[in-house]
């Protein structure tokens, strides 16, 4: 197990290096002048030249990259052009909000999806099964920004139960978490249902039933445990979507998180912040995938052998 973790970690290093090159080239190597990117098309030649010299954009690219990477490895992602705040500090300040939102949305979606998935597999073709099929279809095809608007309209404006935007305690995270988590809930429901159906057909489940084990035990202990493996895969595949969709959710609900920081910085042409956030999210995503991979091989011993 330790060997596997070590091997996976080692394989991640070149990948992260490649990621850093891509993120670096976002600002520096793409066609077009980075100074123009920051200052806009209407900037004067003089201002552009001064800007270039101040930020060292006039040095060879490889030197700039080495310099940038060296600092990034020490946690220095540069400073915001607008506020002069260190980018790392800006991210760290907003990170708890984003993590809480993602965590909360995962809890809500699993709380809906797991029971729904189990019941619709065990009671196949029942009313619950049909309802869960529709829920999955709806959840997967609804744009989350529209769902968010509907939730705001119903629960914040009509019923006045929950706040429409801003952050003011856990109550403010309920609507955003539902907005962010519905697609995940839909996918997990479908995956768990088909996973359970598959497992329930297996011989060992029949054996467990034949030896007189209560249904609750057969489903809970034998079937569910194995069906959950596929659920871990789905969640792993959806981490990227969750991270990306926090941008939409945070901007819709005016939550001061990392995603909001990114979109705000895009609009104020604060590209060091944009670059920093992209690098941060990509590294976070790679690490999260690594964790899922390791978790997966822990849950399914068959993978460990290979």
């Amino acid at each position, binding site marked *: 197990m330790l060997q596997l973790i070590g091997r996976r970690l080692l394989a991640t290093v070149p990948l992260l290096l490649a990621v850093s090159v891509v993120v670096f080239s976002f600002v520096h190597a793409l066609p077009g002048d980075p100074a123009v990117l920051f200052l806009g098309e209407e900037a004067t030649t003089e201002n552009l030249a001064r800007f270039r010299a101040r930020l060292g954009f006039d040095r060879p690219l490889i030197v700039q990259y080495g310099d940038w990477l060296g600092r990034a490895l020490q946690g220095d992602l540069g400073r915001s052009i607008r506020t002069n705040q260190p980018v790392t500090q800006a991210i760290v300040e907003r990170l708890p909000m984003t993590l809480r939102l993602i965590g909360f949305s995962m809890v809500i979606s699993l709380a809906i999806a797991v029971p729904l998935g189990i019941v619709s597999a065990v009671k196949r073709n029942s009313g619950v099964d049909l309802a869960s099929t529709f829920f999955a279809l709806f959840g997967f095809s609804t744009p989350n920004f529209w769902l968010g*608007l509907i939730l705001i309209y119903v629960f914040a404006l009509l019923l006045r139960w929950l706040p429409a935007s801003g952050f003011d305690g856990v109550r403010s995270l309920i609507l955003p978490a539902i907005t962010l988590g519905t697609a995940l809930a839909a996918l997990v429901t479908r995956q768990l249902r088909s996973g359970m159906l598959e497992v329930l057909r297996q011989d060992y489940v029949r054996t467990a039933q034949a030896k007189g084990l209560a249904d609750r035990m057969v489903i809970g202990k034998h079937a569910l445990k194995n069906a959950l493996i596929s659920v871990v895969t789905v969640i792993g595949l959806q981490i990227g979507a969750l991270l990306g969709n926090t941008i939409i959710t945070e901007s819709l609900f005016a939550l001061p998180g990392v995603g909001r920081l990114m979109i705000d910085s895009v609009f104020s042409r604060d590209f060091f912040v944009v670059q920093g956030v992209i690098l941060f999210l990509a590294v976070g995503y790679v690490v999260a995938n690594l964790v899922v991979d390791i978790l997966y091989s822990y849950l399914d011993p068959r993978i460990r052998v290979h």
Partner: protein
Amino acid sequence: MAGTSLTAIALAQFRRSHVGLVGAVLVCAFVLVAALAPLLSPYDPVSADFANVLSPPTRAHPFGTDDIGRDILSRVVYGSRISLQAGLFTVAVALCIGLPLGLVAGYLGGRVDNVIMRGLEVILSFPGLVLALGITAVLGPKLIHALFAIGVVFVPNFARLIRAQVLSVKEHDFVAAARALGASDRRLVILHILPNCLAPLLVQCSFSVAFGILTEAALSFLGMGTQPPTPSWGIMLSAGRGYLEQAPWLGAFPGIAIFLAVLGFNLLGDGIRDALDPRLKT
């Protein structure tokens, strides 16, 4: 016998699948609306009418009007063109880059395969929307940039799918036979291997069109895709956000439109997949 060809079996399967049929109907309706937009929309989608601002749905304006009096029905109808374009263009970008990469990686194998797949892994290291947003931000907020960015995000999925298909197809006897008859690599790949990869590709295309529509709407909603006054569903939703309490119809109809279009392509994809491989049916 014509009646027992694999295509015929797949078509028969497809007709039996309710899911696929509903999807096909939705997709056909969507394409028709986009094609016949000038005939179907009662007003000019971009001309303002300040005498009729924020009118709720009436007989004259079945979907109501927006904050500068534009007819929402006409804008939703014309918006279908942007969405269809978004779905098709993003998939075209992904195909143009992903298909050759997948074919080459799968067919040649070895080092070339390794380099290509490692490269794609780099794209996959970014959350899709973050990458699309980043590319669009650097290129400048324009529809064409957003669509290109979304297409790039799709590339690894297409390349991986094709590669996996090629790997399994190239082991078949008919490929060995064709090679023994002296077929060139290019002929083998294009005439013998590629046609056998098309079925799963079709499924992938359908799902990707749905995702392309969804992502274009998301980027436009954030202000990074289509720019006003072009009627895009994402922009209309974003404009409706400010009038949620006063005029909820501003956001309701474009939202329903996105939902139905995305649902249509998702169901169509499900239907085709079930028809091609009934074993995968869930």
